[in-house]
């Protein structure tokens, strides 16, 4: 994997990879990808794709409102809030 690809993945994941770490991270991700290649090589003809390892199905919830308004308590957990809104640095796009 090229360093430019590492940069792109880091940007998408909002992770900062310092130049000092870059070589090590590149090498480790390369190893993980090699392992994935090895897994991809297994012949899976006739095997159903598996989305979840548990042999169970999703339980459904009744369409009922069970949560009360806890705005004040929850807003207080954020670094900044005003007029009932969470406040974040200016978002430009779009």
């Amino acid at each position, binding site marked *: 994997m090229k360093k430019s690809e590492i940069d792109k993945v880091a940007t998408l994941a909002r992770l900062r990879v310092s130049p000092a770490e870059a070589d090590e991270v590149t090498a480790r991700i390369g190893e993980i990808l090699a392992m994935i290649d090895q897994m991809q090589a297994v012949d899976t003809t006739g095997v159903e794709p598996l989305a979840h390892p548990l042999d169970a199905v999703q339980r*459904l919830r009744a369409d009922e409102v069970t*949560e009360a308004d806890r705005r004040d308590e929850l*807003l207080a957990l954020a670094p900044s809030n005003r007029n009932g809104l969470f406040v974040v640095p200016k978002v430009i796009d779009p």
Partner: protein
Amino acid sequence: MEWEAVIGLEVHVQLSTRSKLFSGTSTAFGAGPNTQANIYDLAMPGTLPVLNGEALRMAVRFGLAIDAEIGRHSIFDRKNYFYPDLPKGYQTSQLDYPVVGRGSIVINLEDGTEKRIGVTRAHMEEDAGKSLHEAFADETGIDLNRAGTPLLEIVSDPDLRSAKEAVAYLKKLHSIVRYLDISDGDMSQGSMRCDANVSIRRPGADLGTRTEIKNVNSFRFVEKAINFEIRRQQDVLEDGGKIVQETRLYDSVRDETRPMRGKEVANDYRYFPEPDLLPVEIGEDLIKQIRSELPELPDARKRRFAAEYGLSAYDAGVLTASREMADYFEQVAQGCGDAKLAANWVSVELQALLNRENLDIADSPVSAGNLADLILRIRDRTISGKIAKTVFEQLAEGPQGVDEIIEKQGLRQVTDEGEIEKLVDRVIAENAAQAQQFRDGKQQVLGYLVGQAMKLSRGKANPAQVNELLRDKLQS
């Protein structure tokens, strides 16, 4: 040489459940900011999603209504991106195993023809919150009430060939979700949002490069945005340029589309199966039950209106476009016993009134019961069709009933032979020249004489009787 437009729509429909897709938080409209955002919606550590069964049933209901395959084994996936109004850092959506698979929708075009449009798929996902960029000078306010609201994203095949077809598809979709009662479909409130994929090509050629127009929020703007984009692409290609695959925003004030900024890396969502949700199994029993509860849908109702009430395909189409309109019409038709008159009054006079007052039929100032009474009074000849329009206007303005208006204002039609004869004699005497012209064979003068008699009676004489009696007297 001609260009052909190729259009596909992605429509997000907000499902009208009481609670969110994965949490028991209310989805009621108009609540104060963040009063409907709880620990799961805020992505607090340790919270887990539980799927809303009603949202699932609504999605299946839609699938059955468009004759789609239902995904018996449906999987949720995480679509990863960072934005402040998405607290989890991913949107829970569906990628490879949506609830609704391939189906189709028949659209009705302006020339009266129909066209079948393929639906690629429809999947369930949760909505994001709202970023309020204008709330503060140097900061952005975040309201997470909408975060987690259930959406059904309906993806069409690229089968649409013009902006008008796209609007016809959107209108049919709107009609279907309203009939199914799974969404209010209100575009102005964002309950139905539309993204359009547009490309052009020479007829018969391979598909051209497409652009995606985001979030267009009315039927009219969908048409304008697509038309603008088709013209823009023609200009680029005819000048020897190339279309860049990009996302564009429609600006309704300037009536143009323009590229969105900063999207160069954003379209890499790194989907993977949502580990917090198990596969959803949709059994035969559930499908059977939902199918048995499906209401009569617009196309079926249109066919029934044509067969049962003898309406033209056009009238039947107009009257079944919305469930409320169709219900209203049926009440009037059954109340007055004359479907054709009812169709006329609902699609002409009532529609004009609603357009003028900018009202939905649900808020019609004239009730279906009152309109049925009015038509009954035309049928039993208490009033003429012309006077009925006056009564109709007054029904719209106040609480009075039909008979009350007719009696209080003395609008009862004159059908008494003796009185009409007096009128006719007077008209013949006062218009001797015209009467002679008629006797000399100038048939069209009769209309003028009938008009004079109606004027004398201030519109209350029965026109058919006036006509008949005038003819008798002049020919004898």
